[in-house]
């Protein structure tokens, strides 16, 4: 794919490449600098694999001080910096550029403190999302935001993208569960925002940093809020004859005042893909499937389920299946969380991430099919229905440039549709490179200029992840 442009590499930086690498090697231990041509190739992309750019060098620091030293150096010489956690971004947030140093946090994987009395964990930025829950599980806690890539994605990346996940319907997204960060500013200054306490003494810079896609600084440590593990949790499968019925059922469940922990939606193609991988027992004879998870004590789950089943009944639910064991529940979630990857078994895909008001779910689903069909492509839908966060997976053949271009155009149309329906371009994957050029569909020039002005308070020279988020045209001069 070629439609999205990157900033022209700064010639002065590229020309000094060997000198820069020599300096980086001086700054950091040898195993922390990657610069051989061959070795840079695997860093040219992330999980938005359609776009690729080689970095100038990659550094893999192990301490905040090392990150600060690199930032200070890059700032001094005007070298762009692109942060990278596990490289699982679906919007190209970690794709570098020819004049950029990638700062990878993958060696910073220490859990610094688990504090059960204050229900917090403090971890280095390279710790994976799931490792936090694993580490606090013996104390009876978990870390709530659960992006589908939680096995691999890092907390640093989660903060960069303000990641969500299936269970955010009840527990909120990253920003609602983040208490503090240690971060390195563009000039190498290290600051602490927040801590184990709540709210801020001044402006909510923590809230601003969360979801800033590596453009305001580089987070090296995070303190997150922990939640007591529920007594029990039970995903229930509801099969419907049409996406419409499933969509309407979601709106009714939420409207009735019941808030399950998660309501996930899959259409027929998605069900088939996931079942083939996970063997979770998803019904294959339905057009749409909802996974509704309730949690709490047995009595509580029973009470909630009774109401949900009644609502589903009014929408002509065809099959209702409760998971009978923890293993079965785990399989149901494994299938759901592997949906994107499992799609790789049948085709290449790009994954959209628009969010729409619940009342527009059915409409947007229908329009999405129309759009994709018009481009002669196929689509699988699997998404967080409870909060209207849609993930149409547009299937295409990456080895066919025309097919790829069509997929990209179809995707853009779908995202514009989400905005027109009163929603937004991205609910949890971030703007990255992917949705950058669509930003003007959601925001006016004034809106975007204000965001860029605030960005400039942190990085006036556009050194931090500079090709992302904001359209290249119309940026204020550095």
């Amino acid at each position, binding site marked *: 794919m070629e439609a999205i442009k990157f900033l022209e590499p700064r010639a002065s930086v590229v020309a000094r490449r060997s000198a820069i690498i020599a300096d980086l090697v001086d700054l950091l231990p040898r195993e922390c600098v990657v610069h051989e041509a061959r070795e840079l190739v695997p860093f040219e992309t992330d999980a938005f694999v359609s776009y690729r750019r080689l970095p100038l060098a990659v550094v893999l620091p192990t301490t905040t001080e090392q990150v600060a030293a690199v930032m200070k150096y890059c700032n001094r010489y005007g070298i762009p910096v692109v942060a990278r956690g596990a490289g*699982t971004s679906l919007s190209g947030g970690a794709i570098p550029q020819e004049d950029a140093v990638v700062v990878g946090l993958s060696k910073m994987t220490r859990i610094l403190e688990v504090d059960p009395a204050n229900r917090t964990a403090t971890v280095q930025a390279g710790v994976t999302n799931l490792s936090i829950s694993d580490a606090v599980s013996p104390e009876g806690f978990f870390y709530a935001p659960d992006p589908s890539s939680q096995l691999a994605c890092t907390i640093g990346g989660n903060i960069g993208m303000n990641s969500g996940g299936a269970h955010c319907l009840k527990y909120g997204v990253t920003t609602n569960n983040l208490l503090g960060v240690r971060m390195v500013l563009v000039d190498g200054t290290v600051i602490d925002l927040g801590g184990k306490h709540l709210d801020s003494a001044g402006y909510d810079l923590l809230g601003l940093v969360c979801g800033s896609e590596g453009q305001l600084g580089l987070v090296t440590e995070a303190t997150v809020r922990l939640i007591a593990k529920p007594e029990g949790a039970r995903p229930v499968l509801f099969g419907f004859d049409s996406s419409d019925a499933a969509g309407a059922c979601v709106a009714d469940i939420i409207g009735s005042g019941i808030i399950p922990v998660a309501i996930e939606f899959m259409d027929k193609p998605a069900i088939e893909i996931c079942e083939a991988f996970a063997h979770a027992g998803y019904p294959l004879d339905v057009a749409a499937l909802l996974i509704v998870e309730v949690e709490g004590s047995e009595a509580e789950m029973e009470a909630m389920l009774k109401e949900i089943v009644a609502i589903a009944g009014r929408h002509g639910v065809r099959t209702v299946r409760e998971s009978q064991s923890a293993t079965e529940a785990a399989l149901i979630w494994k299938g759901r969380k592997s949906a994107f990857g499992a799609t790789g078994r049948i085709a290449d895909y790009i994954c959209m991430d628009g969010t729409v008001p619940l009342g527009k779910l059915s409409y947007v689903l229908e329009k999405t099919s129309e759009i994709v069909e018009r481009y002669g492509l196929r689509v699988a839908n699997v998404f967080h229905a409870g909060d209207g966060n849609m993930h149409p997976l547009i299937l295409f053949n*990456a080895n066919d440039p025309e097919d790829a271009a069509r997929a990209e155009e179809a995707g853009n149309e779908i995202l514009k549709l989400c905005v027109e329906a009163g929603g937004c371009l991205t609910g949890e994957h971030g703007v990255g490179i992917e949705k950058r050029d669509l930003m003007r569909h959601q925001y006016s020039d004034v809106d975007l200029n204000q965001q860029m002005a605030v960005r400039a308070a942190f990085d006036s020279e556009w050194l931090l992840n500079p090709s992302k988020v904001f359209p290249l045209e119309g940026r204020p001069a550095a």
Partner: protein
Amino acid sequence: MQTNFTAEQLADPHVAESEKILRRCVHCGFCTATCPTYVTLGNELDSPRGRIYLIKDMLENGRAADAEVVTHIDRCLSCLACVTTCPSGVNYMHLVDHARVHIEKTYRRPPMDRLIRQVLATVLPYPGRFRLALGLARLGRPLAPLLRRVAPLKPLAAMLDLAPQARPKPSTSARPGSRGSEGERRGRVAILSGCAQPVLDPGINEATIRLLTRLGVEVVVPQGEGCCGALVHHMGKEDQALAFARSNIDVWIREIEAGGLDAIIITASGCGTTIKDYGHMLRLDPAYADKAAKVSALAKDVSEYLSALELPEVESRGLAVAYHSACSMQHGQKITMAPKVLLRKAGFTVREPAEGHLCCGSAGTYNIMQPEISAQLKTRKVKNIEATRADVIATGNIGCMTQIGTATAIPIVHTVELLDWAYGGPKPAKLA
């Protein structure tokens, strides 16, 4: 993901196969999380996704392997945890196999590396030579600290460290011939004696033979069988690996034709993974493709075979067993439940160490070739195992037994040794 191969490149069936594998990868990165080397080193280049990308770049450009690529491929344990994790079904095993062959063909390793690999390939697969080498190792052990100080010689030090203090007596279990079943015959199987295992721990196959014959299964040790080829296969020495495979296939096919075989029983899961892959390895050899497929289909880990025999429940004996699932068992052969179910049925309390998906660092000759990473993985593994406070460790692979055994005081035995004991055999010597 997108690939860039010319039609000419794709005419090579090996390249075509790799291209198909690469096309399935969506670059999601899930595999990084369960990769022991990524978890240890924190570098994408030492992760499955990084290696896939390095291999892709090398193959697409039709380039000879170079030091950078080789470094990262060499660090791969071939534990295949990534294959278990991958939602897209990327066959990393066959991709990395292809890369290793490509490296072996196009890359000239430094002299000491070459020498050590040659020694391993010439000694380990041959029980006689291996036995002799272990004797020499005991004499050489005082040199280990010295060798450790010189980087290219570290593998030699690692080798000396791994050699057992006492060399077990040669056993009769590997002697060719048939061991008749007791009572009514329920089946007839061949058992793989293997190469290193009978030298390091002949008790494993002795226990297997005792248990199977007691259960009414005739066990044959066929004449002429040798190393399964895994060792050299993982070094990219394809010709040698295929020669081992063909030779074993000949032996087993002869045995099938002579008296029929219900299964080929393997007690080292590392070997099992390779033998189950013979069908693929020889798919392009018209003379052997069918026979290899047949052998692969008959190959069974001893725990798989025992599961089908429906052994009776035995009363608990109050012994806590930490079950360590070898990578070749859980990831290579996808056998996850059977050994635990068998142990529970046999009256043992099974405990599962945390991070069970991570390799112990043994991985064939990995602990010799990559001693530093291997040692870190070993420490991590032992810590997790010891946290279970089990009385004994059970596993299904000789490599893991050797590796873990050097770092913990908890006795480590093969799963089948415990089963043999539970169903009427002697108590494993290590528990005495």
